[in-house]
């Protein structure tokens, strides 16, 4: 439990701000020896509890040590001849950090308010009608695309044909026309890749492809550009 609590500090600046607040220190006049001592004790405690002391904390420790030493030496002066407070940079860093740290509270509030609202979840059943231009035959689907899709289906089938058996496959164009029509009956649709994905024999895919072209010619089906690249969708025409 203690371990978790210790890790609540987001970093060395966070830890320093904690000390400053706890002891009601003036951030512009930080008692550097006191705060260095506290910082070291905390690090020591982490070590004792076998927590890993992050490099950031070690870096801060050495920065604090440096400032502590500088405080004992005569002050440096800037171009205007003013003394430079060795703590100046640290103070600026603390203020800047605190600025954003404060905002995290606001962000947490926004977050929890936003967790209370929910958006619409399911869009699958909306009535849609694809724009006219896409319904025109083979719009954006070139012959090249058709051939590519065809070739790819063949290639995939070949890959699966590990055993080269010569086998007569009894399949007719009419059969495959019915097969396609069955898949797209009453206004349904199917992607070409899905249509042939279950088919293992090369010849059957070829026949299916020819059957599809035949159905397009007979205006029983329609082909449209698919949402996935270089595939196309086969639509059943309701009047077909």
């Amino acid at each position: 439990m203690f371990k978790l609590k210790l890790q609540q500090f987001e970093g060395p600046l966070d830890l320093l701000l904690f000390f400053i607040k706890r002891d009601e220190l003036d951030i512009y006049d930080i008692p550097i020896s006191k705060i260095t001592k506290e910082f070291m004790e905390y690090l020591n405690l982490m070590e004792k509890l076998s927590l890993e002391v992050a490099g950031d904390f070690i870096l801060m420790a050495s920065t604090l040590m440096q400032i502590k030493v500088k405080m004992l030496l005569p002050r440096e002066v800037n171009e205007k001849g003013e003394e430079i407070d060795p703590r100046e940079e640290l103070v600026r860093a603390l203020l800047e950090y605190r600025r954003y740290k404060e905002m995290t509270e606001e962000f947490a509030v926004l977050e929890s308010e936003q967790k209370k609202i929910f958006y619409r979840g399911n869009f699958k059943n909306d009535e849609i009608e694809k724009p006219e231009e896409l319904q025109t035959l083979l719009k954006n689907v070139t012959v090249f695309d058709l051939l590519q899709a065809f070739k790819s289906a063949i290639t995939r089938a070949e890959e699966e044909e590990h055993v080269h058996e010569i086998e007569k496959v009894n399949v007719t164009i009419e059969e495959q026309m019915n097969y396609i029509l069955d898949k797209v009956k009453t206004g349904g649709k199917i992607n070409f890749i899905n249509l042939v994905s279950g088919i293992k024999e090369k010849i059957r895919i070829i026949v299916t492809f020819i059957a599809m072209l035949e159905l397009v010619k007979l205006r029983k089906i329609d082909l449209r550009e698919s949402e996935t690249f270089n595939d196309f969708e086969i639509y059943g025409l309701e009047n077909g």
Partner: protein
Amino acid sequence: MDRDYKSVIESIIFASDEPLAEKDLLNVIREIDGDDIKLKLGELNELVEELNSDYKETGRAFKIIKIAGGYAFATNKEYAKYVGFLTTEKSKRRLSQSALETLALIAYKQPITKPEIEAIRGVSSDYMLSTLLDKKLIKIEGRAETIGRPLLYGTTDEFLKYFGLNSITDLPKPREIEDIERDAEFLDQKRKIMMNQIEENIENELESKTNEIE
């Protein structure tokens, strides 16, 4: 203004799975009905307002909100417990303190590089940045022209959506450093509890040491 467009607008916003920008909404209507539609950009907002008062009057459980630069339907807060029960654990999980801190920093200072983030937070932020990128709350916006050309980070539309903001200008303003000056009031009470524990522990530690010496 053509009131018939009210339902059209309603259907389009309802069917959009992400916040829909006004110009995209208008574009849909123009594409279908032609360029000579009577609806003007400024009237959209008015019709959406009308829809929202319809919903209020008829007791609908949702309304149209303006978020991440667009319109979206969202449930009213009062149904949070019911709807929340449906959603996965993941969506209920909150961001860690460090994630919020890093996000706040990026939101106000964007575009900002990792070295700049680390200089302000005082801790290494690699892990945090990759987590926030994964969650799509921040994105890479290019590279800084400084030495090493570090990547620049900024917030995303998902960020706006996550915090319920319409635009980045809706963010609460951080106080200027001058305003925080000498402000003794500093918001974290929860630290008090742990402070006592640390002190106690340090004291015990010292005591045992002292005992050893004795």
